[in-house]
């Protein structure tokens, strides 16, 4: 097994990082540019439901919205569910082009044995998951056991084979931008196809500054290896303005190839409604009541 991430990661300084991140949110994207950005954001959504009370009926309803969000609007990239509901989602999305992503590896804490994590992933794959969203063991990472984290990611990736593996760093628990950068480098070296900010299960989810650190890791990785890997921001991206700020971040940090669902995802649920409302507003010149948008 390829092991041991040796080279040190670049350090990150919070002051200028956050200043740069704030600059992305200041870009003013208007009119036709805004409409194009909204449609791109919709196409990049992993429409997500990860609640203890999720049921087959709830998932089918979400899938319907994922495939046909609104008249004229593009479909989302994927639906993201727990392993038990992958089969339901898969069937509901048959022929729509919308992928099914499953969380796995003892989501959201990741505190289980590697064996259990692999069995969890296997179950999701057996049910037909097109993508796997795994979590890293933050406890091991913070204890300094990078090899353990690396080995787990590599093992899950081996199991996934060509299936896309998104690795959730849960940056809100890592404590510093330096740690986020280190975890990003580690996940990429271990074989992550996509690095993802958060589970959405703790208070601090994706922020522009965190995403910028991860985008810089992706940019440096691409420069070093020639390989383009993806970014997923999850949790806290609730409105159009926030989503567009992330697109600006990608545009100015990574460039065109990342402005596509192949290399960028937004894990969200409420965001889609706001994007649809803004889309409608651009088309008609007025805001519609939220009652006009299906709540799913």
């Amino acid at each position: 097994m390829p092991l041991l991430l040796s080279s040190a990661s670049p350090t990150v300084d919070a002051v200028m990082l956050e200043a740069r991140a704030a600059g992305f949110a200041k870009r003013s994207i208007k009119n036709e540019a805004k409409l194009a950005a909204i449609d791109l954001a919709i196409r990049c959504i992993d429409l997500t439901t990860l609640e203890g009370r999720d049921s087959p009926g709830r998932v089918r309803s979400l899938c319907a919205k994922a495939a046909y969000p609104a008249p004229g609007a593009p479909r989302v990239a994927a639906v993201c569910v727990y392993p038990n509901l992958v089969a339901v989602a898969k069937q509901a999305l048959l022929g729509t082009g919308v992928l099914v992503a499953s969380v796995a590896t003892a989501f959201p804490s990741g505190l289980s044995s590697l064996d259990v994590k692999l069995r969890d992933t296997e179950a999701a794959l057996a049910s037909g998951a097109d993508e796997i969203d795994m979590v890293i063991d933050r406890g091991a990472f913070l204890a300094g056991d990078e090899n353990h984290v690396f080995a787990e990611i590599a093992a899950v990736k081996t199991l996934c084979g060509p299936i896309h593996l998104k690795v959730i760093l849960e940056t809100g628990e890592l404590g510093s931008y330096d740690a986020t950068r280190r975890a990003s480098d580690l996940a990429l070296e271990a074989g992550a196809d996509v690095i993802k900010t958060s589970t959405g299960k703790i208070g601090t989810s994706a922020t522009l500054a965190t995403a910028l650190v991860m985008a810089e890791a992706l940019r440096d990785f691409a420069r070093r290896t020639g390989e383009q890997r993806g970014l997923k921001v999850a949790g806290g991206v609730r409105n159009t303005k926030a989503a567009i700020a992330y697109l600006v971040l990608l545009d100015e940090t990574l460039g065109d190839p990342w402005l596509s669902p192949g290399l960028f995802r937004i894990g969200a649920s409420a965001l889609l409604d706001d994007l649809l409302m803004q889309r409608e507003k651009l088309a008609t010149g007025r805001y519609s009541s939220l009652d006009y948008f299906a709540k799913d």
Partner: protein
Amino acid sequence: MALAYAPALESTPVRIAARYDHFIGGRWVPSSSGQTFATVNPATEEELAQVAVGTPEDVERAVAAAREAYERYWRPMRPADRAKFVYRIARAITERSRELAVLETMDGGKPIKESRDFDVVQAAAHFFYYAGWADKLRYAIHGSEHPEPVGVVGSIIPWNFPLLMAAWKIAPAIACGNTIVLKPAETTPLTALLLAEICEEAELPPGVVNILTGDGRTGAALVAHPGIDKIAFTGSTEVGKIIQKTVAGTRKRMTLELGGKAANIVFADAPLDQAIEGVVTGIYFNQGHVCCAGSRLLVQESVHDEVVDKLKARIETLRLGDPLDKNTDIGAINSAAQHAKISELVQSGVAEGAVLYQQSCALPARGFFHRASFFTGVSQSHRIAREEIFGPVLSIMTFRTADEAIEKANNTPYGLSAGVWTDKGSKSMYVAQRLQAGVVWCSTFNQFDPSSPFGGYRESGFGREGGVAGLHPYLSV
């Protein structure tokens, strides 16, 4: 697909008169000569307004008005009441911030993003800060229970931060009980005149603030006038030297804030992506029309190539164009003359053998624009390493040890600012203590606050503006 940024133009809720008079003794007074000159929008090359030419007679009248206001209203006033006026000006700036920002951008060419989020905000902050000092001056100087104002201040300010520089001069001067005659720069008089309108609306007693427009001759008459007690000048080192000669042998006090050629020092252990942001802020903020701009980049040799690669990529994301577009990062060069000066120095850099890189964007068909640029392979002896360019042009040099970086950074007649980028606190402190510069930013650049003193070493001038130190030039013990 690429993410397009459609034009996002700021609307222009500002009324510009065809012609402006001086503001003297609380009234709008035409030039005694009847002459006016044009002020131009550098982004369109179109005339915005005609502005009065200040003659020696106008200076005479303005100084007399300031003297009368000083004796009659301002010095005798209770300090707490003076503070109320200064607070009132601060609030009015905040209330009219959008108008001021748009006018600043139209008259000077700076991006609306900067005038809106920096210039106007800082200008209001200075008035708020010094308003608070007005009735607490006994705490400003150790050992002086009752410091007195100095009298009538004559002030000449530059075109790079027109409103903000007016605020830097007026706020401490009037908070301390002085009155002032201020001459804005020839190319950017409009926001100072709007500030005069604000003083009028704030019912500031007539003559406390007087705004006199004109060119270098007006400034010379103001400096030479015997009724002036203190000169406060911000501008070029060349003019600063002339002023110092003029004032020699008189009772006039003086503070000068002059040019700079600041070194931004990047060590190999610095967080490089963030250092690049500091480099960009350092030299491309306000098109490099910044006296404390980080115009020399000293990079540790082992990371030179990486830094240059990152900087090349970063300047491609800078959006150059209409300063009124909210997405514009690089606006217009302030004037045709300044544009010619920058171009001449860039040519000298190429001729002396340095390698020029520029962002690849197209330039607008009209207006004075200059691409974000930097030179590699620069030697300490090159003109672009020694002379202040005052434009979006960076000179990159290398060093191997901290002591070499310090030596190179200090090897200039100037000493206004410097930047240090390293992950090690001890190294930061070691270098900062040895840099001969009025302000040293560690792991950041171009940060300002009214409570923080600003000013130069050596040919960058003397005296401090901002903070408690900024009160001293306006007080006698």
